[in-house]
């Protein structure tokens, strides 16, 4: 198949970017989207041009590194699919594909399609962990956990931190990401101990980093490659409200 590409090119964070148009011939429908970009870059390099910078790592949908805004959707037109899992068969022959980086004040562009998502790391550092010296792995049955609860915690823990929720949200809000992280800990006994402090710290950091407010538009859930539910946002709201109302001073 032949395709036309409109790709955002930007030298670095301080320069102004622009779209560049490319035409790519003989693209296999079986190529992944990233393989198609590799194919484009090969041609650019052979032509003595600067290749397109984009992020990728595992290329099997679990690391959260890839993330491109394709034709108006984070990770492209298929639901529950990361950019690396997306194949060219999802597009039509002759189609123009517009590729943009995640757009958010909190995710500044590094180069071309690569954005700095260390804001997510800062949120995690603010409280996304359990302060227990675990030592070696404890006996699994020492702490009984209801299977439904552990499944639910896992539904939150599948978040790969790719930032599609921020990219999809009209307010570029990080609520789904933070909610998933808050919930995965708050649901389990080990995480419950610090739940009240954790949610306050993570929300405070999220606000500080310039993400927008949630307006319950639910685009995040629709475009999350892991299908994380906005029910977790409600869970975080509950955790936050109870922490604000019930926690003692200094907690």
């Amino acid at each position, binding site marked *: 198949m032949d395709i036309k590409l*409109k790709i*955002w090119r930007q030298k670095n964070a301080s320069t102004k970017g622009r*779209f560049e148009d490319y035409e790519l011939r003989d693209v296999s429908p079986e190529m992944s989207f990233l393989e198609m970009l590799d194919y484009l870059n090969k041609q650019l390099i052979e032509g003595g041009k600067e290749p397109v910078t984009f992020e990728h790592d595992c290329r099997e949908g679990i690391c959260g590194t890839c993330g491109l*805004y394709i*034709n*108006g*959707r*984070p990770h492209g037109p298929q639901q529950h699919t990361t950019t690396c899992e997306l194949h060219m068969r999802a597009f039509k022959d002759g189609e123009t594909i*517009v590729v*943009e980086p995640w*757009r*958010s*004040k*909190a995710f500044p562009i590094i180069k071309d399609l690569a954005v700095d998502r260390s804001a997510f790391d800062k949120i995690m550092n603010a409280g996304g962990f359990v302060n227990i010296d675990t030592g070696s792995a404890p006996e699994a049955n020492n702490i009984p956990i209801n299977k439904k609860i552990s499944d639910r915690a896992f539904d939150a823990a599948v978040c790969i931190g790719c930032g599609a929720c921020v990219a*999809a949200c*009209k*307010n*570029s*809000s990080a609520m789904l990401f933070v909610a998933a992280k808050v919930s995965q800990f708050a649901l389990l006994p080990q995480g419950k101990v610090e739940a009240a*402090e954790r949610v*306050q*710290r993570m*929300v*405070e950091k*999220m*606000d500080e980093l*310039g*993400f*927008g*407010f*949630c*307006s*319950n*538009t*639910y*685009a995040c859930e*629709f*475009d999350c490659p892991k299908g994380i539910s*906005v*029910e977790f*946002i*409600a*869970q*975080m*709201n*509950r*955790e*936050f*409200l109870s922490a*604000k109302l019930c*926690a003692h001073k*200094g*907690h």
Partner: protein
Amino acid sequence: MKQSNFKLSSLSHKTILALAGLFLMLFLCTHLLTNLLLLAGDSRAFDAAVAFLSSNPIIKVVEYVLFAGFIIHILMGVIVWINNSRARPVKYYVAQGSETSFFSKFMIHTGLIIFTFLVIHLINFFFIKLGWVALPDYAKDTHDFYSMAVVLFKEPLYVILYLVSFVFLGFHLKHAFQSAFQTLGLNHDKYFPAIKVIGTIYALVISIGFSIIPIYFLFFH
């Protein structure tokens, strides 16, 4: 936590916005019930309701709470909107194609239309009661809201403005009802689908309920 004693977090803003919104939704119900008395055939039932509402001391206190509710809701809504408009300085080239709660994208716009209507509404009724606006000749006294309403409802231009405002209020409420529950953390797979349905019914009842009154006066009275 040492912070945020003075600075409200995004979630606190949203919680206050939702609580004030729910309070205003409750007010809309009582306002609709009162207004429906306009359809009773003559002014007696409506006048009795106005007399009760303007003399009851509890209602007088609630009136201030209501104003506070409006101010807080508007203020929080504007703060949320300002913050959100700063969060993405460079917009996308291709419009966002994600499936979303449609009316959620236009809350500030529908809110602005409702606010404009609210100002006109206050000028037409409340300011007359306060004596800030001169009493029209057709009204018996400053509490003769029946005559004031009937005269306004016979003006086609006012009726159009009124109907348009209530259509947009319906759009606002369609998102607002379920959104308030979500913000307060009350989203649960057992009952949230029902909340969404109730929200839609509520939005329809409010906008249709208010709209039938001017239509009745314009065409059938």
